[in-house]
C-alpha cells in the first residue's frame, strides 16, 4: 500500500521565487561592478539613500540583508565568533556582528571576498552609507567598520521625533527642509567622492519607481485581508527583500514581479485558496523581525493551522497621490513624495473620526494606545507572536508594551518568543512550539471574549 505524502503545510506563492532571485542578482551585480572598477557602497537600509546612490550609478549592497542570508544558509556563526574575538560585545546586533566578522575575514584575505561567502559575497566598499534612522546600530556599526576598511562613512540624518512633537506648529515643514538639505549635502559628498554630477532625472526614476513598487505591495496586502488569508508571512519575507534592497536599482523589474504576485494572490482570493495547505484555524500577525535561521518553524505552525496573514516589519506605506506640480526642485519632490504629515497619515489610515480621537490622545498623553494596532483589526487577527530579539533593541523595546495594548484595546492575546535574527542558539524551537500549542487555548478564550463584547471577529 502506498501512502500519499502530505503536502507541505505552507502554500508558497510561485511569483515569490522570481522576486527572491532578484536579491541574489544584487550581490552578483555588486561583485561584477567591483571587478569592473565601478563603485560599490555598503548601505544601511533607510528611506532615502538607495535611490540617490543608484541614480548616481553606485552599486549598492546591504550588509544587514547579507547577514540574514548568511544566517539562512547556516554560515553566520564563524563570523559571529570572529566579531567576538575582535572585542565586540556579544549583545550587539546579530547583523552587525556577522558583518564585522565578515569584514575582519576580508582583512585576513587582503580585501578578497571570503570563499565561504554565500551568493558570491560582498566586495570591498568604496563608501559606507549609515543611517540615523531606526536604530543605533545603523551608524555605530558602520563607524566601527573603520577598523577594517578606510572607506568613508556618511550617516544620513532623518528626523525621528516623538508623536506629540511631530504635531507642533512648524515641526513638519522644518523636518521636510531638514531632509532636503541633508540629502543635498549627501549628494554633494557623493559628487566629490565620485567626481561626477548627480543625475537628477535618474532620481525621478529610481525614487519614483520605489513608490510604484510600494503601491503594488500595498494592494497585495489589501488582498491578504481575505479569509482564508491567501499569503503567509513566509512569502512576504522572501519577497520583501527585493523591494527593499533592489527596488531602487531596477524598479521596473521589481514592479513587474510584484504585479505578478498581485495577480497570483488575487487568483487565490477568488478561489478561496489559503497561504497554508491546512484549514486556517488561527489567523496571526508576526511582530518583530523574522528568525532567519529557523524559518522552518513557520512550517510547523502552519501544520497546526496557524496562518500568519500579516506582519509588522516592512509593511508598505499607504499609497497617496501628492500634487508635486508646485515643486520644481527634484530633491524637494523626492522628499515631499514620501515624508508625510502625521495628521494626514492618521486620517487616511484610521478614517477622520478615529484619527481625531488618536490625535487628541497624542496631544494629551504624548501617545495613543490605538496606534500600531490597525492591522490587527483589519486582518481580524486571533493572536500575535512577539519576537523579542536578543540583539536588536529597536524592534524589541516596544513589544511588551504592545502586548498590553493588544489586550487592553482589542482583546487580542500575544505570545512572546525569544530568539534572534542571526544567533540560532538564542532560539529554542521545541520550547517555542510547546508554548505555541498552549497559546491556542488562550486564542480560543479571547475569541469568546471578543464575541461577547460584540467585536467583529
Amino acid at each position, binding site marked *: 500500500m502506498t501512502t500519499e505524502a502530505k503536502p507541505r503545510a505552507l502554500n508558497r506563492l510561485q511569483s515569490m521565487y522570481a522576486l527572491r532571485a532578484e536579491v541574489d542578482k544584487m550581490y552578483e551585480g555588486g561583485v561584477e561592478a567591483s571587478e569592473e572598477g565601478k563603485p560599490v557602497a555598503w548601505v544601511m537600509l533607510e528611506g532615502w539613500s538607495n535611490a540617490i546612490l543608484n541614480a548616481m550609478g553606485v552599486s549598492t549592497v546591504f550588509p544587514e540583508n547579507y547577514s540574514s542570508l548568511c544566517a539562512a544558509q547556516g554560515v553566520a556563526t564563524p563570523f559571529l565568533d570572529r566579531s567576538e574575538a575582535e572585542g565586540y560585545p556579544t549583545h550587539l*546586533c546579530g547583523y552587525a556582528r556577522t558583518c564585522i566578522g565578515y569584514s575582519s575575514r576580508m582583512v585576513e584575505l587582503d580585501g578578497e571576498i571570503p570563499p565561504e561567502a554565500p551568493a558570491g559575497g560582498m566586495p570591498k566598499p568604496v563608501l559606507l552609507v549609515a543611517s540615523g534612522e531606526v536604530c543605533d546600530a545603523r551608524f555605530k556599526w558602520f*563607524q566601527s567598520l*573603520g577598523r577594517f576598511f578606510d572607506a*568613508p562613512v556618511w550617516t544620513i540624518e532623518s528626523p525621528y521625533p516623538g508623536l506629540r*512633537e511631530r504635531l507642533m506648529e*512648524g515641526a513638519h515643514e522644518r523636518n521636510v527642509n531638514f531632509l532636503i538639505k541633508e540629502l543635498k549635502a549627501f549628494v554633494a559628498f557623493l559628487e566629490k567622492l565620485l567626481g561626477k554630477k548627480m543625475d537628477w532625472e535618474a532620481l525621478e526614476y529610481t525614487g519614483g519607481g520605489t513608490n510604484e513598487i510600494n503601491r503594488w505591495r500595498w494592494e497585495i496586502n489589501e488582498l491578504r485581508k481575505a479569509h482564508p488569508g491567501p499569503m503567509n508571512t513566509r512569502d512576504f519575507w522572501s519577497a520583501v527583500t527585493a523591494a527593499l534592497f533592489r527596488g531602487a536599482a531596477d524598479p521596473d523589474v521589481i514592479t513587474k514581479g510584484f504585479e505578478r504576485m498581485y495577480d497570483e494572490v488575487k487568483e487565490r482570493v477568488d478561489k478561496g485558496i489559503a497561504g497554508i495547505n491546512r484549514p486556517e484555524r488561527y489567523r496571526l500577525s508576526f511582530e518583530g523581525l523574522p528568525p532567519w535561521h529557523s524559518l522552518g518553524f513557520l512550517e510547523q505552525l502552519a501544520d497546526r493551522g496557524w496562518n500568519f496573514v500579516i506582519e509588522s516589519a516592512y509593511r508598505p506605506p499607504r499609497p497617496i497621490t501628492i500634487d508635486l506640480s508646485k515643486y520644481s526642485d527634484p530633491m524637494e519632490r523626492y522628499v515631499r513624495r514620501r515624508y508625510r504629515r502625521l495628521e494626514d497619515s492618521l486620517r487616511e489610515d484610521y478614517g477622520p473620526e478615529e484619527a481625531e480621537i488618536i490625535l487628541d490622545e497624542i496631544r494629551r498623553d*504624548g501617545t495613543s494606545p490605538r496606534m500600531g494596532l490597525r492591522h490587527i483589526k483589519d486582518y481580524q487577527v486571533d493572536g500575535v507572536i512577539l519576537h523579542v530579539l536578543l540583539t536588536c*533593541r529597536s524592534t524589541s523595546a*516596544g513589544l511588551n508594551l504592545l502586548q498590553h495594548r493588544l489586550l487592553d484595546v482589542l482583546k487580542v492575546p500575544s505570545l512572546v518568543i525569544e530568539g534572534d535574527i542571526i544567533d540560532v542558539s538564542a532560539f529554542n524551537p521545541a520550547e517555542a512550539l510547546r508554548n505555541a500549542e498552549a497559546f491556542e487555548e488562550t486564542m480560543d478564550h479571547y475569541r469568546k471574549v471578543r464575541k461577547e463584547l460584540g467585536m467583529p471577529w
Partner: protein
Amino acid sequence: MAEPSKGLLRAQEIYQDRSRRALELQKQGKKVVGYLCIYPVLEMMTALDIVPYRIFGDMREPITKADSYIPAVNCPFLRSCLDLGLKEKYSFLDGIVTTHICDVGSSLSGIWNYTVRTPFSFHIDTPHTLHETSLEQERGLLEDYQKALEDLTGQKMTKERLQEAVRVHNEQRALVRELYELKKQDPPLISGVETIRVIKAIQSIPVDEGNKLLREVIDEVKERNDGPQKKSARLLVWGSILDDTALPEMIEGLDANVVMDDTCVGSRAYFGDVELTNDPLDGLSHHYLVDIKCPRTFRTRDYTDVRKDYMTDLAVRFSYLRDYVRDWKADGVIMESVRYCDTHGYDVPGVRDYLDSVGIPSIYLEHDYTEGALAPLRTRVQGFLEIIE
C-alpha cells in the same frame, strides 16, 4: 537647631535621599521636571525657574515591575528607571524630558508616557551627526522645547533669563572642573566614590544650590587630611552610566584610585562651556550637539572629507582621553558598560585601539547593573592592576 550640613556630608545626604530638596521646593510652588541623560538642555529649565531633576535607576533594587513593559534584553539602567517610575518613586515629578540618547532611551519616552504618565513630557529628537543641517535641526528642536516649557510654566523664556541660566550653568561646569583639578594630585584629594556622590547630588538640586554645594566641597577637600590614601595605580574610568558608587568602591577597595572619568555621571557633562552667543539657543544647540563627547553622536574629522583613515578618525574621537590620562597621570583605563548598551558597546574596540596606539593599557568590564554582578569583576580588575604595575 542643628547647623545644616555642608560640603561632602551634605553631598552624601542628598545622594542618599535625592528627592528631599526637590520636594521642598515643589511645596514652595516650583515645578520639578525629571530628565534622562545629559542632553535635555538644563539651562532652558533653569531659565524658567524649573528644578531639573535627573532620573536615575537603582542598581540595588531588583527590577520587578518594568519587565512587563520592556523586555529584559534592553539597557538595565533604563529598565530600572522605568521600574522606579512604575513603583511611583517619580510620581512627584511635574514633567519629564527625554532626548534621543539611544534607541531604548528614545523608546522609553513613549513607554513612560503610556505607563507612568507624568503630567508633562517632551522629547527632543537630538540628531546624531555634526552635519550643518543637524545643528540647524537641533536649534529648531530647542525652539519647540522652549514653547513647551513656556506652556508648562506660563512664563516667557526671555533672552536675558536664558543668558543668565547659561552663565550660572557654565559656572557649575567650571566648578566641577575645579573639583576635578583636585584629583590630579597624588593621592587625589577626592575619591571616585565621593565624586559620584557630589555629581549625583548636584543633579538633584537647582543649579545655584549645586554651585554653592560645589564651592563648599572644593573648600573642604582642599583643606582635608582624611582624603584618599596613595595607591599603586591611578585609573581613568570610561563608559556608560555609573550612577552608583558600587563600581568605584570595588576599584578603590583594591590598590587603585579612580582619578578621572569619562562617564555621564562624571566629567562628561561639565568639560566645556556653552558659548554665550547673542541668541543663547545658538550656543546651546552647538554645545549639546557638538561639544559633549558621547558615543551616541557620530563624530568624524570632517564629514565632507571623502578620505578616511582609521587612526586619524580615532584620534579625532578619542584624543581627549589621552589628554585626561596625561593630565591626571592615569596608569590605565577601565572601560565599563552596562550590558545591552549598544552605543558604548560599538566603541569598545575603537577606544581600545586608540589607547593601545598611545600606549595606555585598558580593560573592558560589562555588567548588568546589579550590585552582585560587580563581585566577579573584582578579580579581573585585580589582574589588570597587576599588569599595569
